[in-house]
């Protein structure tokens, strides 16, 4: 199989790149994503704050997804969902896997829009046991918002980045008790907007200059040791759920070792982690317009 332009990742950036490339004149675009639905992580982001730049209003993740997939439907971009890209090779071929089989695809250009992954608790040298009840923030968001799952009642958030703050509010709105947001730096890591919206109205304590030094619990987590980084003092903090927001890592696994070939382009969070979806989209549009123009018929 052949395609002029292969775009990996049908999240905000991938869709934006596809739309721009189509508008620039490319008429042979395949957009693939491992998820069953388009939008990447947008459908799990129930909070508002998307699309201010594009649509002049603040939309929720699902609303924003509806808008862009609607636009996508009016183009000839082919969308392959539930499809894993197993391999990208230097000879401009990719191997795709879905329930129908394996496909070897030749492409002229590749835009990688694979987003990012979350740093997990395993990457921190934290002492103690390894019980159930520890989730990354994005994972917790997916489980609560897409799967309707109840994760726990007494929740501790580790990391005060935007995702940590957003999840803190989400747990409160779900009727859970958020004990605190733990932050090793001397100030909150998230945007002022998120502190104002997610933390202040609910009086969630942000405990700066502290970290989790040990995890306790045999089956399920029952608490952590909180270390005060300035004094070295420690306290025991009971909880039944630990949500980690330890930062995002651009996901470029698929092109690892391929160097910097002239047919490969990065768009969105797999290029660099953007604070806002709008900013990832703007970057992806630039890339899509450029690549689409090169491939225009």
């Amino acid at each position, binding site marked *: 199989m052949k395609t002029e332009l292969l775009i990996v990742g049908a999240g905000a950036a991938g869709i934006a790149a596809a739309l721009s490339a189509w508008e620039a004149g490319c008429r042979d675009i395949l957009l693939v994503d491992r998820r069953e639905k388009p939008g990447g992580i947008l459908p799990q982001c129930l909070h508002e704050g998307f699309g201010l730049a594009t649509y002049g209003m603040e939309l929720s993740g699902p609303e924003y997804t509806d808008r862009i997939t609607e636009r996508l439907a009016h183009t000839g971009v082919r969308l392959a969902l539930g499809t894993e890209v197993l391999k990208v090779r230097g000879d401009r071929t990719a191997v795709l*896997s879905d329930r*129908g089989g394996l496909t070897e695809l030749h492409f002229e250009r590749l835009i990688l829009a694979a987003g990012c992954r979350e740093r997990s608790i395993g990457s*921190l040298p934290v*002492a103690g046991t390894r019980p159930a009840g520890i989730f990354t923030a994005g994972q917790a968001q997916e489980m609560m918002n897409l799967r309707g799952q109840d*994760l726990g009642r007494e929740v501790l958030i580790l990391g005060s980045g935007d995702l940590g703050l957003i999840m803190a509010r989400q747990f409160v709105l779900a009727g859970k008790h958020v004990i605190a947001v733990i932050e090793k730096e001397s100030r909150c890591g998230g945007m002022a907007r998120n502190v104002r919206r997610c933390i202040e109205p609910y009086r969630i304590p942000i405990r700066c200059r502290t970290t989790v030094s040990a995890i306790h619990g045999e089956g399920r987590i029952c608490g952590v040791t909180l270390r005060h980084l300035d004094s070295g003092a420690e306290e025991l903090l009971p909880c039944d759920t630990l949500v980690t927001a330890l930062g995002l890592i651009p996901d470029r696994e698929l092109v690892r070792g391929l160097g910097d070939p002239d047919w490969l382009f990065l768009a969105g969070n797999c290029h660099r982690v953007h604070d806002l979806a709008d900013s990832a989209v703007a970057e992806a549009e630039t890339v899509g317009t450029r690549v689409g123009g090169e491939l225009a018929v």
Partner: protein
Amino acid sequence: MRGFDLVVIGGGLLGCFAARNLCRRQLHIALIEAREDVCTGVSRANTAIVYPGYDHKPGTLKAEMTVRANARFAELCAELDVPFSRCGSLMLSCGEKADAVLREKYKNGLSMAVPGLRLLSGEEARELEPSLTAGVTSALYAPTAGTVNPWELGIAAVENAAANGAELFLNNRVLGIRKTAEGYRIETDREVFACRAVLNCAGLYADRVQELLFPSEVHIVPDGADYLILDRAAANKPTHIIQYEPEDGGKGFNAVPTVEGSLLLGPSERANELDFAVSERGIDFVRERAAFVLPGLDLGELIRSFAAVRPNPRREDGSSIGSFVIENPAPGFWSMIGIKTPGLTCADELGRFAAEKAAAFLNAGPNERFDPRRRGIKKARGMSWEQRAAAVRSDPDYGEVVCCCEDITKAEVLEAIRRGATTLDAVKRRTGACMGRCQGSRCQQKLLALLARELGVPEDAVTKDGAGSEVLGGGRHED
């Protein structure tokens, strides 16, 4: 009450391999395990090395068994369809005292005909393994050393035992053992077993299990240890097993390129701890050692740290025991107490050894129908594209990748559940899902849904590793 010829207590590597080897005889066997899965204790967390056999005193059971087991290991893993990497090992020294230790080990190894041993200069060692510290003064190279995933091996053995007629009883904690006219009566928290003979392979608790009926001359003093795992993408990973023999005679250090492609670092040592909790000191120790022995290693690629507990056998007076201990306090009752390094290497040999003793006692003839072969779960990763395309054609679930870090498909997960996995960790141990760099943050929820559906239970009943480790709902609350 259930009746058996022999009951094996404990589903660690030793119990699984004892059961497997007992099936070589015409015996009705039960394996009972306290936990929800096999290989959850000592077998779950260790250094994963298949030793070449130069470490032990020539003429001892341990030394002979290790050399023999190593020679047979590739064949064993082929029979059980378990990946084995004979990557070779380099034991390093960085000074005269440790040089002398290595020379002793070399001589020791030669006297036991350990194949291919070579004593290398520091320069030669660095040629073989450029990532080593410049401070290396000599190295003992053992091309027959290798690594295997310990739980994968144990699960393979118990699956093979079950296919040959052994019955597995999980979630059965032994509460009492009594002598009867016919043999023994074992009470667990769920069942009563009657049997003619007992083989106690209860790992960390083997001394206590024996003491339910007999005194034990050997006692287990557990040692804790910590390990780190680096992602397969970590720069400057060694390709051989690196073992460091410190100049001060202190605790050694290992770096093991695992069969999964990650790098295992450790252990640290914590005396007298029966605690599967990682210590901060232990992590620091392992990091310091790693930075010293492999200076170019990217420790920022840490994906997991975990704790292990080792059963150290001690006599009543507290003195430690260097050999394998197989106690036989009464006719028809054997205990393997305090089997630690190289227990993984020798698991099948120890199983055979114990099985032969038991079979002689029970007068059991050979089981002509015993089939030593077991087929593992067919893994998509590592298949050629043609093989993988064929796999998807015959089962569309092979086309659906569930764990994207480790490239594990839905077909593999479903097969693991079909083979008896009931928890997230049991699926992880059978498929490798969740073992990669994201540590399950992208696939655990999918595994949870598949487990609930296949087991016919609500999602909030699914656990990480047994009752009390429910993933949803904040776990069980007392209120």
